């Protein structure tokens, strides 16, 4: 018997039942969306979990100014080893941004999406942002354009946004309650004044909600990002999710707070903690309902280049792209071929899955407990990375209803900067810590030393499924675990912990 591969919007309740009407009948996280929206997002790595294994994105850092302060942001910090939103190495003029976009598009043909995400707020830099979009929509018509914003200036920009045919906008909405807002946003710049506290937060919230409504009225796709800040807005985000969905947002992305003292942010310095992976997953599940939740976000830098989870920005610095002579007409032909090839591969994959699907029949009577498995992959939806080379692992949950994507775990999360650079814990112990809660790690290859240490930590390394599709391999390993009776006992890492 085969297990279904269920989509990520089909959450499995702890009782083993299925909370989603689409469970068992869908094979793609976007399948509940109208065709017109699916057409817009099927090759967008940030919007489609499936697409993010194949298609790449880039950000151009043309928007340095900001009109608000967030407690998780520090405008001073720039470290090339650090990866988080708001950080860039090289600010670009709109002309330089266009040159860089063409260079990346020609060299990484699977790059389908160009976003402007900062390092400040793109809509607080309307001239630079819109000059860039104007040139790109003329010169690189095969690239999708998108923008992210805190929403303060959004209502004033909707008209301009719809003119440039930007059909994807991300709004960061952390709260709909001004009192909570005052704990996240110390001030905003509004009508030529700096406005502090609850009063400022109230204006920001009103502008965000108004902007969201205006965009969805015009048929522009809106994704909402929320930063989960334990003890500040974590419980409240369920209400945020309900409201933004009712107003027409098509995807909600709940991301963990990144807060380290070394970043010099308010939350970092004041000791505000970020959520643990299981807390994030629980909140994402609670927010889901029948709404599409995004779980593959990598919270990338405002100048990131490449597949999600990788950053090839170093290959495209200004001095390097100055030497690349790009013939964009030629590049577009190559790109079209590459995109068609990927589309074919994806269609084959879908067809294969469809053949495997069996109706909602549990694998066994008496539900087996679910198992978390980590995967080392560098893209294409297959297990193709050496354990020691992985800078992140994708985490999946296998259960009697099938496989669902849970999220990713970064290994060397952030450069800790300055004097402490080079004193990081060993990469291996970092990897093992990142895998907490997982019982199996699937990779292309793995060395002897990590193998032993993983086993000691209660995580079973598995290199037998190299180059196989992720979902298929996880199902096979889960089936083996069931058959061997491994699931009758408590998870290994728990019995180790109590031993």
């Amino acid at each position, binding site marked *: 018997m085969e297990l279904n591969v269920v989509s990520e919007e089909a959450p499995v309740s702890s009782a083993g039942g299925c909370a989603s009407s689409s469970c068992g009948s869908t094979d793609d996280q976007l399948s509940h969306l109208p065709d017109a929206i699916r057409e817009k997002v099927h090759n967008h790595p940030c919007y489609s979990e499936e697409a993010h294994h194949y298609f790449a994105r880039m950000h151009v850092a043309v928007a340095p100014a900001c009109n608000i302060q967030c407690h998780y942001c520090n*405008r001073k910090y720039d470290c090339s080893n650090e990866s988080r939103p708001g950080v860039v190495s090289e600010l670009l003029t709109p002309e330089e941004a266009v040159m860089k976009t063409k260079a990346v598009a020609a060299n990484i043909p699977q790059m389908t999406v160009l976003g402007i995400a900062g390092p400040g707020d793109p809509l*607080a*830099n309307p001239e630079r942002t819109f000059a860039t979009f104007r040139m790109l929509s003329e010169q690189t018509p095969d690239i999708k354009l998108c923008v992210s914003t805190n929403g303060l200036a959004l209502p004033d920009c909707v008209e301009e946004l719809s003119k440039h045919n930007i059909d994807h906008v991300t709004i960061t909405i952390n709260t709909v309650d001004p009192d909570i807002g005052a704990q996240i946003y110390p001030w905003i710049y509004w009508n030529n*004044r700096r406005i502090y506290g609850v009063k400022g937060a109230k204006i920001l919230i009103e502008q965000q909600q108004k902007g969201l409504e205006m965009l969805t009225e015009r048929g522009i796709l809106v994704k909402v990002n929320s930063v989960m800040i334990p003890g500040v807005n974590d419980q409240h985000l369920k209400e945020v999710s309900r409201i933004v969905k009712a107003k027409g947002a098509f995807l909600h992305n709940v991301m963990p707070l990144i807060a380290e003292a070394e970043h010099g942010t308010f939350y970092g310095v004041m000791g505000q903690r970020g959520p643990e992976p299981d807390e994030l997953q629980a909140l994402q599940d609670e927010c889901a309902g029948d709404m599409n939740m995004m779980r593959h976000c990598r919270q990338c830098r405002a100048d990131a280049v490449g597949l999600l989870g990788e950053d090839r920005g170093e290959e495209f610095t200004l001095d390097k792209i100055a030497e690349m002579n790009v013939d964009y007409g030629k590049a577009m032909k190559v790109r079209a071929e590459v995109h068609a090839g990927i589309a074919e591969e994806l269609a084959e994959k879908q067809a294969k899955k469809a053949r495997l699907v069996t109706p909602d029949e549990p694998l066994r009577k008496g539900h087996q407990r679910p198992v978390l498995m980590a995967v080392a992959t560098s893209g294409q939806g297959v297990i193709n990375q050496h354990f020691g080379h992985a800078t992140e692992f994708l985490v999946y949950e296998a259960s009697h209803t099938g496989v669902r994507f849970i999220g990713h775990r970064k290994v060397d999360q952030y450069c800790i900067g300055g004097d402490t650079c080079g004193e990081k814990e060993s990469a291996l112990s970092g990897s093992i810590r990142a895998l907490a809660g997982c019982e199996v790690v699937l990779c292309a290859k793995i060395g002897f030393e990590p193998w032993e240490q993983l086993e000691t930590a209660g995580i079973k390394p598995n290199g037998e499924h190299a180059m196989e599709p992720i979902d298929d391999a996880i199902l096979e390993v889960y089936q083996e675990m069931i058959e061997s009776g491994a699931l009758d006992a408590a998870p290994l890492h728990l019995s180790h912990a109590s031993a």
Partner: protein
Amino acid sequence: MSLEIVDSCVSCHACYDVCPSNAIEMSALQKHFVIDPKKCTECEGDYADPQCASICPIEETILNASGIPINPLGSLTGIPPEKMEEVMREIQAR
């Protein structure tokens, strides 16, 4: 009568965009934005508050005509200066 930008400026352009007198320019020499004292009016007649100092995100970066920071330490981030010092000392000690 003029405000001044000092070298803690991170060149984020925010002040440059909102100055009503076009008094702010990038200094190639100092590698950050500077205010032309001949053009700066401290926004008198245009706005209630000087615009550069109302949007600048970095504390102690814009000084008034007497050389005193308009946004003192802790006023924009909300981090008490003594807490910041304590945490920075801990990081250095690691």
